[in-house]
């Protein structure tokens, strides 16, 4: 009772394809163009690179606020991390072009994206965005140390602890333990020039736009990085030099997960397509198996040897 290939395909097409298409296309899970919801009490940072003096007080304050030992692994003496790492949640870097044109410092820490790629990729939700404050935090109890977050984050922020048998993933969590007590994050508490400030995201956005209005031509493209970049982030940046030079990539208005996982999400929506495929496969294989077993039994009779199914 062999089914021909033609019958196979027609069967699937008649039943499955319309249903599958309907389910796939009709879904509205984070489709393009939909604005990403901003958490109700979203807080964030506004960092103005043009007033940062590179004093690195925020680097020291961050380590102190988070009870992290200073990272002296560079020269065994000074707390001078070369980049974010398992002991450094916040770092000041310098963009200094060879030709002597304008230089700029940049403060790098977690951007607390509105649709974080790290949380989208984390298999067991160890990285989780708080629905109210929007702070993206890491939970040790759920993490399996797969380091996928270090790959998905477009800003390359989460860092894995490579030494020791109990590694953790380190990144800025906006000093949520201080926020609970009504204090501000460590970095913003010590900045001498007010280059980085803390506050509700909406207020910071207004402040940033006011600065742009008051100083036309001072800031790159007269815009705030993070307003819509990567779908919006809660750490906002103003800069004199191009954002890309500071290591902030131009990602466009769509968040990384929405842009790249669109078809994945549609395909697996409600598990409809896979389930359909499975049902079809079972039918096909049932018929196949019947035919195969019949042939095998015939051969068994012919050769006298036990069938190998």
């Amino acid at each position: 009772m062999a089914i021909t290939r033609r019958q196979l395909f027609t069967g699937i097409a008649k039943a499955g394809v319309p249903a599958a298409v309907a389910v796939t296309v009709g879904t509205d899970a984070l489709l393009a163009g939909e604005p990403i919801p901003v958490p109700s009490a979203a807080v964030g940072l506004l960092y103005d690179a043009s007033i940062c003096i590179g004093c690195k007080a925020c680097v020291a304050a961050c380590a102190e606020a988070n009870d992290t030992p200073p990272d002296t692994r560079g020269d065994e003496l000074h707390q001078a991390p070369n980049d974010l790492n398992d002991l450094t949640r916040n770092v000041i870097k310098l963009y200094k072009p060879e030709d002597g044109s304008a230089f700029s410092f940049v403060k790098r820490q977690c951007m607390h994206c509105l649709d974080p790629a790290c949380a989208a990729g984390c298999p067991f939700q160890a990285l989780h965005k708080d629905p109210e404050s929007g702070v993206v935090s890491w939970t040790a109890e759920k993490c399996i140390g797969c380091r996928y977050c270090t790959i998905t984050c477009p800003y390359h922020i989460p860092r894995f602890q490579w030494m020791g048998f109990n590694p953790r993933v380190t990144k800025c969590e906006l000093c949520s333990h201080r926020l609970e007590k009504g204090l501000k994050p460590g970095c913003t508490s010590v900045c001498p020039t007010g280059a980085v400030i803390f506050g509700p995201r909406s207020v910071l956005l207004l402040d940033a736009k006011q600065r742009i209005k008051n100083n036309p031509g001072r800031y790159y493209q007269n815009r705030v990085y993070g307003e819509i970049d990567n779908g919006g982030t809660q750490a906002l940046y103003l800069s004199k030099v191009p954002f890309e030079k500071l290591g902030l990539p131009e990602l466009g208005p769509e968040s990384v997960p929405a842009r790249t996982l669109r078809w994945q999400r549609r395909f697996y929506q409600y598990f409809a397509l896979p389930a359909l495929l499975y049902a079809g496969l079972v039918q096909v294989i049932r018929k196949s198996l019947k035919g195969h077993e019949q042939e095998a039994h015939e051969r068994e009779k012919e050769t006298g040897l036990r069938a190998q199914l």
Partner: protein
Amino acid sequence: MPTGERETIGTHLKESGVSRRSFLQLCSKIIIAAPIGLSLTRRATAAQVARIVGKARRPSVIWLHFQDCTGCTETLLRTSAPDVAHLILDVISLDYHETLMAASGAQAEAALRSAIEENAGKYVLVVEGSIPTRDDGVYMELGSRPAIQVVKEVAGQAAAVIAIGSCASWGGVPSADPNPTGAVGVDSVISGKPIINLPGCPPNPYNLLAVVLEYATMGRLPELDEFHRPRFAYDRVIHENCPRRAHFDAGRFAAAFGDEGHRKGWCLYKLGCKGPVTHAACATRHFNELPGVWPIGTGVPCVGCTEKGVVWQMSTVETVPIHLATPPDTYPPIYSTAGQLKVGAGALVGAIAGAVGGAAWVASQRFQSSTEAGVVRVAADIAHAEKLKAKPASKAVAHSDDRKED
């Protein structure tokens, strides 16, 4: 003031009864005042400096006051050890100084004239105070002659002009807005003579002493920057050498006068310290020969008294931007290096890849022959089996259990 034949400094000091010990102490203070940038002080020990200074002729100095507060003179005298003040005055020959000399009136004018005549072309003119230029300079007259005229006349015969204090250097207090007298520094009025500015309000007296002695001993003036300030004292900003810099770097700031941070001696930047934009040597050479006797040392933010655009232009509580023209390279770059290719691992991977590739190649070569071999073997087996079939009681059936023969 004794004039006439110039004796050497060493002789004069001995005659004045100054001990050699005091002289050596003075020389070591000069070294501290000007550790680099002066050929005079590029010696290893105070004794070497003393030898050179001792041999030099006492330089003649004429000191003029204009729109001043006499603070620069006071700084020369206000030392904690009175001997040192006298020492300074014994090393240089101060031939005319209105504050310090006994004469006045017509006697003073005569003294000036004779001082100029006797040392023409050899004396160092020190100017204290700014010079008014508005309305033909009537706002300051010396013996009924406008300051401009006086300074041009006296500078005309001088070997070098030292403008001591901010007022003489660029106008100072009198030049603060609205500058009603048109006060300017000496270098706006004099040209054609080497001018050295020693701004400060007041400046450090050892800066003056070092410059004068360099001229007296070496016959040349120290290296100057674009504002005619000697580099040995004015090439760095206070911020670079500030003893409280560590607090600045660590983010410890005094937020208000008298608060805990202020009491602990933390950085005064947030209180408006102009250290980052003020070129002066006060951070390392304090005043009155006492350590810690300088504004920041006593808990007062620097007001930038040497800088024309800072003091009396900016509010004392206004914080200054701290952008150095070229930041040092001790900051991490935007992209840092990671990972390295180790030779051992590379060799291992290469060896494995080579081994696998080689094995695959060898295997592929054997295929042609083996197929035939396989075919031949099967054919031989079939032949053998058929041969066995031909024989009746074959050895193949040695066991009692029944089994179909192939």
